[in-house]
């Protein structure tokens, strides 16, 4: 019990909320404390939003939460209830259409998520029950189940390792899909259970586990296991080294037994997911802002008209002249009710000014438009056979607005694949496959690299189960190490002729150039640590000579070298580092037997020390690794993805800030950043890392220091910042007592804003999301984009405005949770610079045009109220009111918003700076919106008063007959449809045959429809007001002439504005457009 208390003591304060797990669901023996049975969720992962039953109510609710849909529902209801100028069908039909289309789309998307969830939840898991292996579906797994996981399988939930097939009770795990680190990590089985290695044995384990309730931090875990041996509990501490996380993969270990402690949505992986909230693009936000403006216009119009109506009606002879009396029921209604009904009627009359169809069109545009991304052959990866995937089409245009790009490193920027590039011995450079002239020093160098490592050789079993050694077939064995660099080096040596075979009985075997096996006895390994930044081995050659081989970072080797061509090697190392290669220096020291004895003595002394063992070891290492003779240096490349540097450069040119967020260590990450041209040689790097800022107070000072550095060297523009997770969490920590920490955040943001590139290393997944969130919340509210390939990037992908998944080697989680997925990082360039740019241009025109065309549509009707006694008389026929947005003017703009290419896509790719032309949502700013609205009002005035003066008390047919109000409305409407379509014609820069077909086709459709609509007495209508109106109008010469005149007058100012602006204040885009034409003309 004393042990137990001490555990309670040491395991800290936060042990309040804990859970108890019975391994194999076995009750603890009586006599121990009575545990309360807890309920845990099953192992189901849920990412879908709806179920079959709640789809309709939940989806309806979500849809009507949108301002526009709700608005139209209200209009529809008002039309149903009161006597309004237009029939409920005019708004009910489009609304029904919108809701249905959206519901079908969302339902389909959720069905896909259901399918994905089902695949995950139903994948088989092997569970030990009563000494037998039973296959269960993953979702049926419960806390307390003992699970058998085989090599290369993914853990189905968070597990405590009980035993492993390896003798020492360890297992290797790669957490690549969790935190992006592809290296193998070692996990340890519980001391008292590691001996139970068969099903039967495992099922006799009688133990309970107490541990904390689930929390999202991947690296933190505290718990305790009580193993009952002969009813006597033995308590052992559990830490994160015992916890296998869902999503990680078992490697290099045949099988393990483990017990489930966190399942389903309580696993650390699931907790690191963030709830998938609906993302809204900046364009949609502008749209909503405009909507509010138009709503105000609408309400003020209705209020003004209602007010004027009652003012005008105060004379009873106007209110109710003898020829136009009310019914008795109307007369009896209270004046306030009448006024309110009138107000509502005006609202209904003008409701078209809020373009309902815009939402349908935007929806369709996004949905259909996303196919162009999926179809794009330039984003097809031939190797994987994968194309870009669009998960959310809602954000197409946001791709054109990105200001910050947050990218993962491993697997995103790099191939996640180390490769040996060259080595340099005494200033001579060797690359793989080159013929070496066999100097003694070189051979020593190669041997050094073959020996100085901790690589394991993994022999793969072939299909028929016969173990193939290296002698039989070289391809059947491969190297495994926690450091991919070492693997690359050993493999590089293999290509240079020295093959590391294996470690057998303390003997390292090397196959040299002459196909002879050389054996070296491995005496000591001085393991790598990040403070020393080097490692060493002491070996005894077959001939009896003893050597110490040391390899490490240049900065830690050079000061210890006493001999060798330091200058040449140093030059080469620097050159390689600049190119972004990861460099290591190799040195050796021959040891005499006496020296070796001394070394042995020092080491064993340190190892046996009970206090300050680490410190003593470090001192011993420091003494041993001295007086080295420099052999040479190596260069390894974590190969960048194809064109990654070019892509980053383009993104920089396009005005985006690129941040690399990685869980990797700083040196590696920094090297990649150099290689990918994120940092240049000229970039001034500022480091904010724990290594530099050991103590909190120091750290604060450091931040200030950096800040001052900035203010001092303001003239140097190219800054890069490196920060690590620990420092970052210190910066981000919400203020304790002092308010200073808030300032640090601001200072940090200020620094970040001034840096062209930022590297954040050692990031936990949630920290990545925090960074994105912090930038999102900074005062400019920039648009962010996150790219990643692993599950560790999911949270940041979900947090950023746009999340992009790379279809990498680390599973499909990032892809599944992303908004868009692309096969390779390089495809980001086309995605943003071409597709994003186009979609932004397209949708901004779409939005502006829609508001414009509805202003033009409704404003004449507003003016008409002044001429019809404010009686809510519609100017246009019901059919025109309904079909104007649905069919007469909808297709051309939809097609425009799918096809428009204001600039050739090759130019867009070649000249990334064009992206800046549309930055900051510039096509949807208020001045431009006001311009469109003013243009709309102007056009409406021209149309209405043009028709008004034409109708001014005269006949305009040669038979002297008169036209009525419907002809008046039809004339205005005809001008309206043509003007609005021609406005789009003027804006279209890309005329394919489809554009011609649709634009001219929709005008023809309008004419044909009007002829047909007025050509027949429609039996189902209770009015025949449009009968022959259109044809009578066309039979009149002045009507034709005035239509032509009014269209010309409407379009004139816009054309003049365009031409003059282009001539006097051209934007880069416009210059390029003109330039393209000129160049084409000269070519012709």
């Amino acid at each position, binding site marked *: 019990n004393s042990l137990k208390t001490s555990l309670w003591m040491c395991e800290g304060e936060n042990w309040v909320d804990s859970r108890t797990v019975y391994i194999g669901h076995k009750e603890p023996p009586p006599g121990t404390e009575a545990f309360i049975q807890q309920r845990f969720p099953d192992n189901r992962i849920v990412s879908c939003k709806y179920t079959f039953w709640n789809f309709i109510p939940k989806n309806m609710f979500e849809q009507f939460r949108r301002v526009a849909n709700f608005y139209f529902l209200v209009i529809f209801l008002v039309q149903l209830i009161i006597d309004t100028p237009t029939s409920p069908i005019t708004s009910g039909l489009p609304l029904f259409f919108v809701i249905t289309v959206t519901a079908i789309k969302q339902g389909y998307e959720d069905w896909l998520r259901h399918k994905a969830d089902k695949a995950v939840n139903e994948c088989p898991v092997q569970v030990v029950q009563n000494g037998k292996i039973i296959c269960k579906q993953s979702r049926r797994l419960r806390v307390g189940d003992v699970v058998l996981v085989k090599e290369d399988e993914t853990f189905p939930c968070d597990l405590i390792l009980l035993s492993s097939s390896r003798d020492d009770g360890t297992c290797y795990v790669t957490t690549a899909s969790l935190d992006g680190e592809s290296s193998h990590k070692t996990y340890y089985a519980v001391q008292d259970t590691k001996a139970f290695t068969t099903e039967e044995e495992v099922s006799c384990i009688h133990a309970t586990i107490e541990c904390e309730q689930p929390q999202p931090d991947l690296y933190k875990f505290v718990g305790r296991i009580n193993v009952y041996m002969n009813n006597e509990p033995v308590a052992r501490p559990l830490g994160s080294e015992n916890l296998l996380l869902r999503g990680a993969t078992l490697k290099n270990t045949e099988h393990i037994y483990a017990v489930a402690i966190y399942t389903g949505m309580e696993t650390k992986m699931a907790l690191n997911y963030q709830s998938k909230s609906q993302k809204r693009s900046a364009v949609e936000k502008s749209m909503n802002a405009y909507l509010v403006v138009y709503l105000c216009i609408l309400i003020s119009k209705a209020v003004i008209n209602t007010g004027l109506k009652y003012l005008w009606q105060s004379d009873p*002879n106007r209110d109710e002249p*003898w*020829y*136009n009396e*009310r*019914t008795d029921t109307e007369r009896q209604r209270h004046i306030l009710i009448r006024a309110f009904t009138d107000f509502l009627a005006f609202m209904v009359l003008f409701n078209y000014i809020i373009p309902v169809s815009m939402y349908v069109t935007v929806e369709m545009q996004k949905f259909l438009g996303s*196919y*162009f991304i999926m179809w794009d052959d*330039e984003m*097809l990866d*031939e190797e994987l*056979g994968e194309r870009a995937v669009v998960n959310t089409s809602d954000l197409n245009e946001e791709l054109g607005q990105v200001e910050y790009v947050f990218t993962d490193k491993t697997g995103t920027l790099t191939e996640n694949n180390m490769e040996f590039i060259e080595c340099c011995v005494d200033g001579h450079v060797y690359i793989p496959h080159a013929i070496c002239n066999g100097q003694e020093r070189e051979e020593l160098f190669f041997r050094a690299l073959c020996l100085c490592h901790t690589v394991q050789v993994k022999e793969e079993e072939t299909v028929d189960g016969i173990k193939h050694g290296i002698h039989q077939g070289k391809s059947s064995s491969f190297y495994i190490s926690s450091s991919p660099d070492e693997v690359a080096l050993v493999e590089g040596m293999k290509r240079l002729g020295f093959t590391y075979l294996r470690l057998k009985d303390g003997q390292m075997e090397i196959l040299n150039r002459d196909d002879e096996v050389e054996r070296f006895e491995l005496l000591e390994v001085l393991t790598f640590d990040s403070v020393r930044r080097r490692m060493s081995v002491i070996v005894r050659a077959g001939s009896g000579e003893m050597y110490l081989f040391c390899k490490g970072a240049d900065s830690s080797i050079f000061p210890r070298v006493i001999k060798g061509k330091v200058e040449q090697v140093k030059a080469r190392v620097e050159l390689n580092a600049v190119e972004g290669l990861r460099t290591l220096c190799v040195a050796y020291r021959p040891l005499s037997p006496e020296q070796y004895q001394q070394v042995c003595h020092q080491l064993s002394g340190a190892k046996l020390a009970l206090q300050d063992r680490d410190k003593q070891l470090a001192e011993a290492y420091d003494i041993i690794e001295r007086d080295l003779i420099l052999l040479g240096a190596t260069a390894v490349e974590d190969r960048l993805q194809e064109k990654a540097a070019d892509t980053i450069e383009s993104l920089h040119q396009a005005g985006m800030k690129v941040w690399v967020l990685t869980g990797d260590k700083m040196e590696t990450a920094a090297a990649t950043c150099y290689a990918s041209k994120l940092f240049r040689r000229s970039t001034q790097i500022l480091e904010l890392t724990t290594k530099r800022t050991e103590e909190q107070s120091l750290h604060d000072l450091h931040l200030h220091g950096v800040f001052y550095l900035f203010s001092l060297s303001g003239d140097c523009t190219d800054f890069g910042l490196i920060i690590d997770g620990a420092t970052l969490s210190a910066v981000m920590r919400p203020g304790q007592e002092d308010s200073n920490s808030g300032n640090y955040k601001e200072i940090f943001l200020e620094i970040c804003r001034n840096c062209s590139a930022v590297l954040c290393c050692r990031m936990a997944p949630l920290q990545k999301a925090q960074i994105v969130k912090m930038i999102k919340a900074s005062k400019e509210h920039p648009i962010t984009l996150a790219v990643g390939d692993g599950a560790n990037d999911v949270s940041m992908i979900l947090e950023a405005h746009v999340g992009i998944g790379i279809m990498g080697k680390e599973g499909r989680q990032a892809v599944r949770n992303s908004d868009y997925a692309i096969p390779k990082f390089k495809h980001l360039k086309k995605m943003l610079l071409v597709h994003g740019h*186009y979609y932004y241009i397209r949708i901004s025109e779409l939005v502006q045009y829609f508001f414009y065309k509805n202003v033009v549509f409704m404003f004449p009707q507003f003016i008409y109220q002044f*001429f*019809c*006694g404010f*009686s809510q008389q*519609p100017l246009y026929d019901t059919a025109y009111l309904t079909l104007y947005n649905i069919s007469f003017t909808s297709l051309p703009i939809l097609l425009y918003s799918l*096809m428009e*290419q204001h600039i050739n896509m090759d130019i867009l790719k070649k000249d990334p700076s064009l992206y800046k032309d549309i930055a900051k949502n510039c096509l949807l700013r208020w001045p431009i919106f006001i311009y469109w609205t003013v243009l709309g009002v102007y056009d409406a005035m021209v149309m209405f008063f043009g028709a008004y003066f*034409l*109708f001014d*008390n005269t*006949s*305009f047919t*040669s038979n*002297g*007959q*008169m*036209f*009525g*109000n419907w*002809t008046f409305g039809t004339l205005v409407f005809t001008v309206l449809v043509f003007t609005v379509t021609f406005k789009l014609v*003027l804006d279209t*820069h890309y*005329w394919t045959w*489809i554009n011609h077909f649709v634009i001219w086709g929709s005008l023809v459709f309008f004419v044909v429809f009007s002829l047909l609509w007025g050509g027949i*007495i429609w039996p189902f209508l*209770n009015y025949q*007001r449009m*009968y022959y109106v259109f044809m*009578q109008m066309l039979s009149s*010469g*002045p009507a034709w*002439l005035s239509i032509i*005149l009014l269209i*010309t007058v409407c379009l004139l100012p816009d*054309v003049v504005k365009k*031409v003059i602006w*282009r001539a006097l204040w*051209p934007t880069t885009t416009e*210059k*390029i457009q*003109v*330039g*393209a*034409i*000129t160049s*084409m*003309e000269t070519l012709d």
Partner: protein
Amino acid sequence: MMPTSYEDGHISVSGAGGGSMPGKKPENTAFKQQRLPAWQPVLTAGTVLPAFFIIGLIFIPIGIGLYVTSMNIKEFQIDYTGVDMSSPCYNCSQNFSWNSSRPCACSLPFYLDQPYDSNVFMYYGLSNFYQNHRRYVKSRDDSQLNGNQESLKDPSKECEPYAWSSSKPIAPCGAIANSMFNDTLELFYNDPNGSKVQIPLTATGIAWWTDKHVKFRNPGGNENLPAAFQGTTKPVNWHWPVYELDSDPENNGFINEDFIVWMRTAALPTFRKLYRIIQRKNNMVPTLPRGNYTLEVVYNYPVRSFDGRKRVILSTISWMGGKNPFLGIAYITVGSVCFLLGVVLLIIHHKYGSRNNIAT
């Protein structure tokens, strides 16, 4: 806008080794790659210039033509509302009452200072009369007017409060029909020799052909209208039932042209409607020679209660209809503006156009 050039129609397939993934690769079309051949026009001063000049050159002559035509149209208006004490119709307008069985008559002399040569169209004009008021516009039953028997007996609710009168359906129902213009206007030429010649007025051809022959129909054909309208009653303000509007069976009942003209509601509160046509007899004599005329009015239609005005208009008609200088002036103005803009753009093009090209 001017066609600049067609990009050649070649379809570039990007990405190496186009055919290596035959199964996975959907068929590649220029459309899917957004590389359809396209015409890419750009509006610049240079391309728009010619269009402006052309518009100017076309619009100005059209405008002049329209203006001259409009100026050649002769039009004469006379207001007979009787607002002034001096007006001959003052008494009629003052003593108006719906119930008076005796019609009030008044006559207005006027002088035409130039002869009207071609057909002359006689309009009545009303001001401040809101035929386009919503309550008014919808107060009709098109189905009834189309001769539908059911609607005849059961008029649409839209006609309220003019649908039923003393529990009989009104035919034609509704506010529009009820308020039909019912002044009688006659024109006399005061021959210099002292005699008063009545000018023959044609009452047909004043409504749209399609209205008269398709949209408006009497229930059960044009014969025996009183029987067809059995069981209905006349609109409250009418003096006669609908089948007594005219003696001509082809112009009686719902297909009476005066009625049809009235039923086409006007767009604006001041409007005119065609009343009669004065046909030209022969080429030698003008239709209306210069001289003194008298307009005889049977004053039935009250407008003073809502400050309305009544007019009679005599007008000749050209191919472009009645007198309306607006269109001609507008054409001339727009044409000139375009021409001017063309000049301005020419200057801009010369000053800045070359600069842009160098810049790119």
